[in-house]
């Protein structure tokens, strides 16, 4: 660490055609490329040009379908991420490569071997996002009942111990051991993060919330005997970049329009306990039908009230969708010119809200490239971000100590 302004960290959440749910319909997207290596290699190289710390792959162990859901109407985001990370090792030189992998549905032996091998093959650039998997995964692993969250995390602590013991029998890579990443926000997830997580992907709407979360996590880690500076908190961040504010707003509107009616119905199906497939936008929005399903849920008080607060008298499904698409997406976002985006990031970072960001580019590669070419240089000029990689490992990019 130098005596100058502390720098922020940037990762790219490399999600098929981009983070926007309808990015595959963008004119610049070529869907047939989304299953080949070139698309991901190109994205990783753009990120590397921008000197980002890492690219990151999420994962699930079940097809994304709930009440019809968005299964057919959005791009597939499920090429196995450890295969992708390994393939990208030879297509990149310095950028970190991180993959989500389940502690519940892989043995410690497989987990240890996979990430140690990726780390060795990449010259010390591997990271592992330790996930415990959602309920849908259980049905694909004959597990009987998918374990409840508390049980999953208890098991995960044991898995990490076993993985570490196995890693002790493997020669260290240039970074020692793979970086451990964590993203779950439940109380058990937070405890797990404070125990093992070196890089935390969080999600928070307000700076105050982000600051409180980061402070809480740092003090929990300290209570466990860890140096709080060795945990980096990166909230997801979805910038909407235009040359002007007006242009950025127009871009946001364009992406909203990319959400096809079929997809809007699918998103409703995902959100509520009703399959909306085949319904029509002109139909009345089925308030009573949805309320009836909320009756069965244990914590109905808050849910019913929140739902009813969202609903307007006599509106159609189309009206409801139109309004929902305009609501804040739950992502941390900023809409404006490059300077505005940089100001926002600087405010969060300087205000103690985070150690950096995990970029959720609307579309890949176009919006990613725009960020690298327009926003990163401003951050660099302000001394907030590196101009060049100083080391060659993910740990060195993240400012984490070499781990034995």
């Amino acid at each position, binding site marked *: 660490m130098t005596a100058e302004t502390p720098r922020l960290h940037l990762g790219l959440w490399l999600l098929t055609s981009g983070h926007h749910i309808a990015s*595959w*319909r963008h004119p610049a997207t070529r*869907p*047939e490329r989304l*299953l*080949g*290596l070139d698309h991901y*290699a190109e994205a990783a190289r753009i990120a590397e040009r921008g000197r980002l710390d890492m690219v990151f792959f999420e994962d*699930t*162990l*079940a*097809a*994304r*379908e709930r009440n019809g859901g968005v*299964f*057919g*109407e*959005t*791009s*597939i985001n*499920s*090429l*196995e991420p*450890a*295969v*992708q990370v*390994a*393939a*990208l*090792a*030879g*297509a990149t030189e310095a950028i970190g490569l991180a993959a989500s992998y389940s502690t519940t*549905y*892989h*043995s410690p*032996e*497989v987990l*240890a*071997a*996979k990430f*140690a*091998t*990726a780390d*060795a*093959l990449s010259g010390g650039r591997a990271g592992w996002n330790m996930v415990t998997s959602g309920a849908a995964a259980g*049905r*694909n*692993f*004959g597990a009987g009942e998918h374990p409840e969250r508390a049980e999953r995390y208890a098991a995960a602590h044991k898995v990490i111990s076993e993985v570490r013991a*196995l890693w002790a*029998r*493997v*020669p260290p890579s240039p970074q020692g051991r793979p970086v451990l990443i964590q993203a779950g926000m439940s109380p058990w997830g937070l405890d797990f993060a404070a125990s093992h997580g070196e890089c935390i992907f969080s999600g928070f709407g307000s700076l105050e919330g982000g600051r409180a979360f980061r402070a809480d996590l740092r003090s929990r880690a300290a209570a466990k005997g860890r140096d709080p500076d060795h945990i980096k908190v990166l909230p997801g961040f979805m910038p909407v970049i235009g040359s002007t504010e007006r242009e950025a707003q127009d871009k946001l509107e364009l992406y909203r329009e990319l959400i*096809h*009616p*079929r*997809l809007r119905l699918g998103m409703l199906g995902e959100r509520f306990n009703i399959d909306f497939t085949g319904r029509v936008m002109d139909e009345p929005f089925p308030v009573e039908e949805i309320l009836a399903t909320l009756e069965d849920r244990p914590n109905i008080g808050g849910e019913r009230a929140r739902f009813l607060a969202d609903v307007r008298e006599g509106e159609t499904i189309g009206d409801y969708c139109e309004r929902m698409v305009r609501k804040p997406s739950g992502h941390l976002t900023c809409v404006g010119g490059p300077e505005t985006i940089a100001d926002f990031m600087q405010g969060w970072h300087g205000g103690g809200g985070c150690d950096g960001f995990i970029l959720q580019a609307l579309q890949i590669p176009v919006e990613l490239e725009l960020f690298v070419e327009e926003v990163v240089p401003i951050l660099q000029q302000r001394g907030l971000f590196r101009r060049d990689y100083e080391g060659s490992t993910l740990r060195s990019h993240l400012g984490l100590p070499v781990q034995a």
Partner: protein
Amino acid sequence: MILALALDPAWTPEGGRPSLVQAVAMARLAEQADLDLILVGSPGGGVGPDPMTVASALIPHTSRIGLGALTTSSGWAPFNVARALSALDWLSGGRAAWLAAPGADPPGRFAEHLEVVLELFDSWEDEALVFDKAAGVFTDRDRVRRIVHAGPSFTVDGPLNSPRPPQGWPVIVQFADAAVGDADLLVAPSGAAAGPASALTELPFALASVAAAGVLAGEMAAAFDRGACQGFVLRPDRPVADLQMFAEEVAPRLEHQGLRAPWTGPDLRTRLGLERPANRYARGREGTR
């Protein structure tokens, strides 16, 4: 004649096993020699490098050669095997092979595991990917099915959350003494009295000289010509040096004798003269949506 390279790297070079760095060099040499495929991993055990990760890492270093990875049914859940192999096939452009072994499993469990993996590949029809921007349809959900497998050892709902691999299934390679069910290629140990004629015989070798290379080429041609095997799985004694000698001195002799031909593609199955498997659901088998 089919030629494969056995690649069994260790963390550091030891007991004749190449290091991971050497593994990349060997892959390049193997492609230079126009070998058909690389088979990563051997059923040895211990905390060795993960074969699937090694095979995947070889994708950008190669463009034609097949890439196969060992998995064991005792060590990997079938859903994870299917996803990893699907990604290996997609990202390599149709070059994936699956070296399927039982590990510690009895034959029955191994056979069921293999079956589940194939069912998962077939949970997506080839035509499921539509990419229709105007209609807003990326995947035709009517062409994706749950498999609802409920067997003695595995209960798997499906569908897989990856599309059907470009080859249909990766090329399935098994060890001859443990083979069950579907197999495209078998691997028999060297010195086996008479391996199945459909097998590739493992061939440990060392090449101290050009003359030795000539002798090896002759022996390989003779074995192939008398129908003893379909080809060989090469195990060079000195991983890089002997493989280099093979590429420079043996492979051209075999090609000259008409036993080997340059790669034509487009994928590994075509190269090996193997049929693309039809989707078993398309063959009238019931699935449930």
